[in-house]
């Protein structure tokens, strides 16, 4: 095998590997299936309804959480930091909680969350289902493109590096 054919072989391997991984991911369900996100509804702490369509044009990170969920509270400072770092570049963080409004209000005020939070057990569970959650475990996060497509689903906590990489990959 000369140098040229060796180089060609490596290129082919990389292409096949990447393609194979994409196919395998799709079959295993890692690749988010298309979801119509526009109609997904949340109610804010003042009782005002919101839909994901209200946030079209932004990269939206929906982080499902609860005040009874320890890992969620560990993760929230990362989301606050992400909102502060990337907000001006078009990142919108939303925090629907599977929780009682009073508990969410108390936590929001104490932690001074710089992004909208919502509360409601059944509404939040319905939104999680609609966005492709299968476990109803928290935290659960979904990254949605400015045109409303689901880009990424994450069950469990983000690490700081993981979140940074994800946002920077998709933020134009």
């Amino acid at each position, binding site marked *: 095998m000369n140098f040229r054919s060796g180089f060609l072989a490596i290129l082919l*391997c990389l292409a096949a590997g990447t393609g194979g*991984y994409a196919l395998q991911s799709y079959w295993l369900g890692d690749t988010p299936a298309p979801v119509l996100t526009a109609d997904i509804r949340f109610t804010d702490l003042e009782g005002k309804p919101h839909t994901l369509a209200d946030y079209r044009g932004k990269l939206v990170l929906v982080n499902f959480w609860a005040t*009874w969920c320890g890992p969620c509270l560990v993760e929230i400072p990362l989301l606050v930091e992400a909102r502060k770092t990337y907000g001006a570049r078009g990142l919108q963080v939303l925090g629907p909680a599977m929780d009682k409004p009073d508990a969410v209000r108390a936590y929001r005020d104490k932690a001074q969350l710089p992004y909208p939070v919502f509360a409601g057990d059944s509404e939040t569970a319905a939104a999680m289902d609609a966005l492709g959650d299968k476990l109803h475990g928290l935290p659960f996060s979904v990254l949605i493109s400015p045109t409303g497509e689901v880009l990424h689903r994450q069950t469990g906590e983000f690490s700081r590096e993981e979140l940074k990489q994800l946002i920077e990959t998709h933020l134009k």
Partner: protein
Amino acid sequence: MRMISLVLLLSLFSTGATADLLKAEKPEFLPVDQAFELQPVETKDGKLTVAWRVTPEHYLFKVRLNFASQSPGLKLGAIKLPKGKPYKDELLGDTEIYDSDLRVSIPATGTGTLKVTYQGCAKKGLCYPPQTREFNVSVAPKKKLA
């Protein structure tokens, strides 16, 4: 021909290896009923027993366990929960957890519906919402020795 075979072999290897590498970083989480397998309620000698099989790397919070009668015909006595393992939780502070199989025996008499509430998490960073299950039970009084 040798060249094509080599390319195919390396492609297969790189596909699997890349996929495994990326998937290995993501923890796999279980549905709540697999994480905490609630067993059928046992009733015997004036008491009922509620038991869970707790899957390794998961835990239930002691303070989030609750047992209540939903029927006037079912009376529950004082509930003494087993000692849990000390645990520091982000919200609850110093608390107790059960990270292995758990059995709770409750003195009881009569017939009716028992409501069981519990909540737990996976140690890899996922919490399940509070769960409620109801059981229809009938507890015979404890037999007296002749």
